[in-house]
């Protein structure tokens, strides 16, 4: 059964596939070369990606996210920083998914510094993402980025707290 949504999602790929099939049957050289590129990349991905997503799925069901959330807001110092970073690392997804959580952290009494550290950690440190980073770029790349980005986003958090001042508020994001 072919869904409309599927057709839309795969539109460009289907177009590409038609082009490749045409090229293969007509011996169109640029098409053959593009196909060689594509098949090499695709084979490499398809062998590892399902495995990586399997790990991400298992991580998703096992990690006690609620238990970590309970600690947020308690203590705005180093302890608080530890918990926001931990929370950020277990949440997958793009950065804009972290903004509503930042508002909740603010409401729960997290310090401004820790809110910006949370945003930094969210973008830099997702554990599900590590599977992909280590798998494709190696352990050394991952380790270097982990250490340096940790330092950088903590510094950014400290600067941001100084910059925005005491009366700064995170808004619920629904207004203007």
């Amino acid at each position, binding site marked *: 059964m072919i869904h409309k949504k599927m057709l839309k999602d795969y539109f460009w790929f289907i177009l590409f596939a038609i082009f490749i099939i045409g090229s293969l049957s007509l011996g169109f050289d640029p098409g053959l070369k593009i196909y060689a590129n594509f098949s090499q990349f695709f084979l490499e991905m398809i062998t590892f990606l399902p495995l990586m*997503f399997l790990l991400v*799925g298992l991580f998703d*069901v096992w990690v006690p996210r609620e238990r970590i959330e309970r600690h947020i807001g308690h203590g705005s110092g180093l302890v608080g920083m530890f918990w926001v970073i931990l929370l950020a690392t277990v949440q997958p997804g*793009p950065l804009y998914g972290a903004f509503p959580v930042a508002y909740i952290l603010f409401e729960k009494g997290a310090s401004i510094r820790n809110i910006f550290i949370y945003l930094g950690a969210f973008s830099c440190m997702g554990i599900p993402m590590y599977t992909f980073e280590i798998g494709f770029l190696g352990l*050394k790349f991952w380790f270097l980025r982990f250490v*340096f980005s940790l330092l950088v986003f903590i510094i*950014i958090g400290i*600067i941001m707290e100084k910059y925005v001042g005491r009366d700064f508020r995170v*808004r619920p994001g629904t207004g203007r």
Partner: protein
Amino acid sequence: MLILILAAMLSIILSFIADKQKTLEGIKRGLKMFLNLLPALLTVLTLVSIFLYLVPDKTIIKLLGAKSGIVGVAIAAAVGSIALIPGFIAFPLAKILLAKGVSYTVVAVFITTLIMVGVLTLPVEFKYFGKKAAIMRNVLSFFGAIIVGLLIGLFL
């Protein structure tokens, strides 16, 4: 890659021993995420395949290779800041670029700016933090990302 295969097998076995139901649920979720991402992945691979055919290797190495210097870093930082590519796709893409002769520094700057800076999502960020804080956060993240990228390149 061997580590990954071993890690995956070990996790599945351990998870299965601990809780059969949860394991099946996890596998289901993982595969669902994979299927959701597949169209985007295929589109990116298609574009990269065409791009790498159109742009000769020599040009790529000249613009983004080890000797590209500030030009390579600038291109990587600009593309990384603006593009909205999920990490699931960015990391495989980075590997392709490395294999094509793009330097570690350029790849690292691309990855770090991609994940830390969001020019296109700024309007959303404004709503939560206000213009002043959102712009400052992105400016700081931009320079922070370049520093992290350069440091990674220095060690690799």
